[in-house]
């Protein structure tokens, strides 16, 4: 029993999902990646460290769960009977879902420390860590508390427009400074296909993510289009991958999941 790693001892891979910019789809991508990895037969955990705006519980439709204690610590919330997808989020600790968590940095750092050390994940193939936007307390707290454990790397999410890629460049600088490997960049909200006439409009421009990947010499993992079916699946907490296996978005997400697995496996 390795006390050094504690509750993370049986977690094989840890991946952070980061973006300097808010609302670009970090939680969406985290959720969909987790579902895709599960479909590939993996055991997956999600740690949601967005303390002021936790979205994952709703996206997985486990909004009003309670967290229980066991000998090893907090038991994560499982989304299914097979316990193949586990989740921990501050959303489970709030009495009222509209309660604001008005905390300054030190309190956020303390809770993240607890999330990392005290959740009894058990055996997991992948632990995905969903983060809030920015490069501040939460991000430093996660990196520092995971220092003892090996973090495989970070996936950076951006939307195509320059206003967003500008913030993601700063996130890459954060990864360099903290020694995090960049597994790759995902461009989200890339083009919208009109359901009426099939015309593709690039609402938030196009190609910014790929350009950024070239500019910063990072791998490009792929594009996810704007898809109202994806937005409504997340709203209702349905498994998009099961509901729409034929959509182009499904293909894009699956491809990204496999690229991430390959990238991690190659490094060993």
């Amino acid at each position, binding site marked *: 029993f390795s006390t050094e790693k504690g509750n993370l001892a049986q977690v094989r891979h840890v991946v952070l999902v980061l973006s*300097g*910019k*808010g*609302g*670009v789809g970090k939680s969406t991508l985290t959720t969909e990646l987790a579902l895709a990895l599960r479909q590939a037969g993996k055991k997956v955990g999600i740690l949601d460290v967005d303390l*002021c*705006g936790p*979205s994952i519980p*709703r*996206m997985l439709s486990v909004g009003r769960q309670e967290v229980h204690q066991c000998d090893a610590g907090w038991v994560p919330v499982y989304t299914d009977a097979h316990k193949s997808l586990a989740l921990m989020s501050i959303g489970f600790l709030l009495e009222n*879902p*509209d*309660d*604001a*968590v*008005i905390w*300054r*940095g*030190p*309190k*956020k*750092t*303390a809770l993240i420390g607890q999330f990392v050390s005290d959740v009894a994940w058990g055996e997991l193939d992948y632990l995905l860590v969903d983060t*809030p*936007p*920015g*490069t*501040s*307390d939460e*991000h*430093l707290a996660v990196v520092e508390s995971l220092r003892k454990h090996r973090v495989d790397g970070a996936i950076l999410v951006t*939307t195509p*427009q*320059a*206003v*967003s890629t*500008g*913030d993601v*460049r*700063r996130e*890459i600088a*954060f990864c360099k*400074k903290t020694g995090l490997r960049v597994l790759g960049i995902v461009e989200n909200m890339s083009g*919208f296909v*009109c*359901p*009426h*006439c099939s*015309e593709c*409009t*690039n*609402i*938030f*421009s196009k190609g910014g993510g790929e350009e950024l990947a070239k500019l910063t010499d990072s791998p490009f993992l792929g594009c996810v289009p*704007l898809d*109202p079916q994806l*937005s409504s699946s*997340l*709203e*209702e907490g349905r498994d998009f991958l099961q509901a729409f296996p034929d959509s182009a978005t499904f293909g894009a997400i699956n491809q990204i999941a496999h690229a991430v697995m390959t990238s991690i496996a190659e490094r060993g």
Partner: protein
Amino acid sequence: MEDVPSGAPQHCPGTSSDQAGKSSACQGCPNQAICASGMTKAPDPAVEEIRQKMSTVKHKILVLSGKGGVGKSTFSAHLAHGLASDGSTEVALLDVDICGPSIPKIMGLEGEQVHQSGSGWSPVYVEDNLAVMSIGFLLSSPDDAVIWRGPKKNGMIKQFLRDVDWGDIDYLIVDTPPGTSDEHLSVVQYLSSTHIDGAIIITTPQEVSLQDVRKEISFCRKVKLPVIGVVENMSGFVCPKCKNKSQIFPPTTGGAEKMCQDFNIPLLGKVPLDPRIGKSCDEGKSFLTEVLDSPATAAYKSIIQRIQEYCSSHQPQD
């Protein structure tokens, strides 16, 4: 709203609490004597300095949203442009998003630098009557990440409010990062002895965004910040080819309209998605003067007018 310094003992009661320096957690803390002396409970002298500085600012508006990427900076920038289109109105735009400053890019001011003068930092001017300040002007490269914890961000915000030479202005618009944390508490605290007209809350129509925005409204209530109203952004998309409308971010729970009814706060308007808005922002131009025929322009203009009316009918009495 405790004031717990970084590196404090685990159960630190906060430097401004009644228990400061006296609780069991304070035993052995190097700051115990200072906290026990009561010095730390005195209000930050900056609050008074900021009050004096802000005496020449007529209206102060915060732009907030619990959720990221819903269009806070886009809205702040266009509110500033819209108000400044009247040449006799002096407008200032302050960006307190320390880790992700977008305002310099959206205002077409990337690469600009802030200058020092006898009376403080000079903001960067877009027009004679539109001044901008952002941490983006203080970074040497667009790749520079500001990896700061709370206390350093707070210090920067204090400086922005106290040390920038704004001059006489009619409107100060403060663009904030997502969330309800250090930056938001600091802005409200530092402006606590001045009159803040209120907050404008931005959301997108889907529930995943609204659930964060409700938290922001709880925040406003807790810190007693009036809510001027809510703007629903990215509200539907009209295909430029077939002119049919689609809901990209569907309002599955009734959108901002339902939320505003529930909280009894005004809905200022809905701004549709228009690819030309994002393009104008990337090019640093004002969408309001670039694209006159868009329904989004009309929506923006009507919202700006309602904000002006609110501010002039809620003048502070002093």
